[in-house]
């Protein structure tokens, strides 16, 4: 059964209105970046104890969404699930956009973003962050070549590059996890489970996002989308949710068990602060337990409405997970003198604080708007959507 891919008309008032709104949000985001760049990072909520804030959380979140999308786009060519060929192009395009958004978020967070080219000239082989720079740029090239192969209908190329893309996506996101997992000085970062847990969360959040976006896109463009395809994706989603949950349980149990890391783990999980709330309510309840129940319950698991709802919960839950990975590990002080209480004017030994500033929120919304804008314009410029998606 041949699938016909066509561009969307994109001439309705609604379309133009959407483009206008996204452009306004994007401009707001870029303006706040400009303010941060010219005046300094004191305008953000970051400080010397918590040097990484929302921009980094957004960066790793978008990289995860991107890697998940790319794996999904390869479901038909690499994993033989040919019924998903209908949205291979959209998913691959989205993967490229989300990574562009991630790099934008990362570059705009730099203290000196005009020096970003230095990162390409001076690869530091011992720095996993440096390796990631190489992995991310190659990833975008791979996405573009993959899209080219799909547009020109070269099936053998699609399969070969699709396989490379899946492997590369796993490397990219394991590398992103390793940025945190390799840091031996911080108890809440150091863990060999961070790379696999990142990949699992990428797959779950990517699947959830694809479900939501596909339903929205097909509905707004009035094209037919077979509910069986979405139900099939939801089965994958629940599997990924369980894997993420499993890895989080193991990681936290291990940290609680060892006396050296117990205090840090206790701070995150049981001390009643805002990070506990984000962990238990955001990640565990909203991100894992409720979606899993919905997607297993025979009364709700085949209903598109409930699937979309649980996808939204997963999208929120994984964002909470990224937050939990980045912020508490910095807020909890590095242990300089085990067995001693430490205090200093530089906040040694003290619990740090990080409050998301309005500028960071505006910048984050702006970056998401840019990704959205490129997506919407891409639907009009490229033949990404099938005329109908049947199983």
């Amino acid at each position: 059964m041949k699938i016909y891919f066509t561009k969307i008309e994109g001439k309705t008032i609604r379309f133009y209105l959407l483009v206008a709104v996204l452009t306004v949000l994007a401009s707001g985001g870029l303006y706040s970046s400009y303010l941060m760049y010219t005046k300094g990072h004191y305008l953000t909520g970051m400080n010397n104890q918590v040097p990484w804030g929302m921009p980094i959380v957004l960066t790793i979140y978008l990289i995860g969404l991107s890697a998940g999308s790319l794996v999904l786009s390869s479901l038909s060519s690499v994993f033989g699930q040919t019924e998903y060929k209908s949205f291979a192009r959209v998913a691959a395009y989205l993967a490229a956009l989300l990574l562009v958004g991630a790099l934008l978020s990362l570059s705009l967070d730099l203290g000196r973003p005009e020096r970003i080219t230095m990162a390409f000239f001076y690869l530091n082989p011992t720095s996993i962050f440096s390796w990631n720079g190489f992995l991310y740029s190659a990833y975008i090239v791979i996405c573009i070549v993959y899209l080219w192969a799909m547009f020109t209908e070269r099936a053998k190329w699609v399969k070969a590059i699709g396989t490379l893309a899946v492997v590369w996506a796993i490397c990219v996101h394991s590398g992103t996890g390793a940025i945190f997992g390799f840091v031996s000085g911080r108890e809440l970062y150091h863990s060999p489970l961070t790379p696999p847990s990142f990949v699992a969360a990428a797959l779950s959040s990517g699947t959830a996002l694809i479900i939501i976006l596909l339903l929205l896109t097909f509905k707004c463009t009035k094209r037919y989308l077979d509910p069986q395809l979405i139900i099939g994706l939801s089965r994958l989603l629940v599997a990924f949710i369980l894997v993420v949950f499993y890895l989080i349980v193991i990681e936290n149990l291990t940290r609680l068990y060892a006396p050296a890391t117990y205090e840090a783990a206790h701070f995150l999980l049981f001390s009643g602060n805002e990070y506990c709330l984000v962990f238990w309510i955001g990640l565990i309840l909203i991100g894992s337990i409720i979606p899993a129940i919905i997607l297993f319950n025979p009364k709700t698991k085949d209903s598109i409405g409930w699937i979309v709802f649980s996808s939204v919960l997963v999208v929120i839950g994984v964002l909470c997970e990224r937050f939990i990975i980045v912020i508490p590990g910095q807020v909890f002080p590095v242990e300089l003198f085990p067995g001693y209480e430490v205090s200093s004017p530089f906040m040694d030994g003290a619990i740090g604080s990080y409050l998301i500033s309005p500028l960071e929120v505006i910048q984050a919304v702006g970056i998401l708007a840019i990704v959205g804008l490129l997506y919407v314009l891409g639907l009009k410029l490229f033949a990404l959507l099938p005329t109908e998606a049947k199983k």
Partner: protein
Amino acid sequence: MDRRTFLKIGGGLVLGAAIAPLPQLVSLLRAEDTASGKTKLGMVIDLNKCKPGCTICVDACRKENNVPPDNYWLRVANIKPKFPNAQNRPIPLLCNHCEDPFCVKVCLVKASFKRKDGIVLIDEHRCIGCRYCMIVCPYKSRSFVFKKTNKWTNPDVPKRMHGVVEKCNFCVHRIDKGLMPACVDACPEKAMVFGNLNNSQSEIAKLIASGKTKTIRPDLSSKPKVYYLGL
């Protein structure tokens, strides 16, 4: 042997040859000790001579290096054992100029580097301000310049623009002229000793050789070169 078998064996050999160097790549995970020269600069701080409430070294460092108000290149912390009726003791904390520095290992652009004499420096023209070095430093030695500053108390020290990371550099502009770091000079109790660890006749080498000095978190194996007496 037919062509297919030949190709299969050939392909296997090529793949094997391609994978063979992989174990050596693992060595990239460890930063090489590129700066192993004759000089190995370090510091010993005698905590028995440190007076509670004194911040003379901190103030001297701030003035000498134009350190922005919220940043600390050198700070005095107070430590107190988790024990009933324990007392606070002061301890100056600064960059340890480690022999296996985590910051040098992770710097994206190699802006943080180790000089041949063992001092860990930051090339402020290259630093992109990503702050990964701040994340990995276990000693919290680094500060980020959050705000543009125009007040410079010392014209001899380069100005640092906002958006880069900075830290103690053992007053490299002074030691290259044969002087001592500002904190060492300023301390009225002469609690700080700076010198070449590789020179067995130097005061610092004798202090460390006595076995009475300790470093902070030696278990992390960053091999810090700031030692403490009386810790």
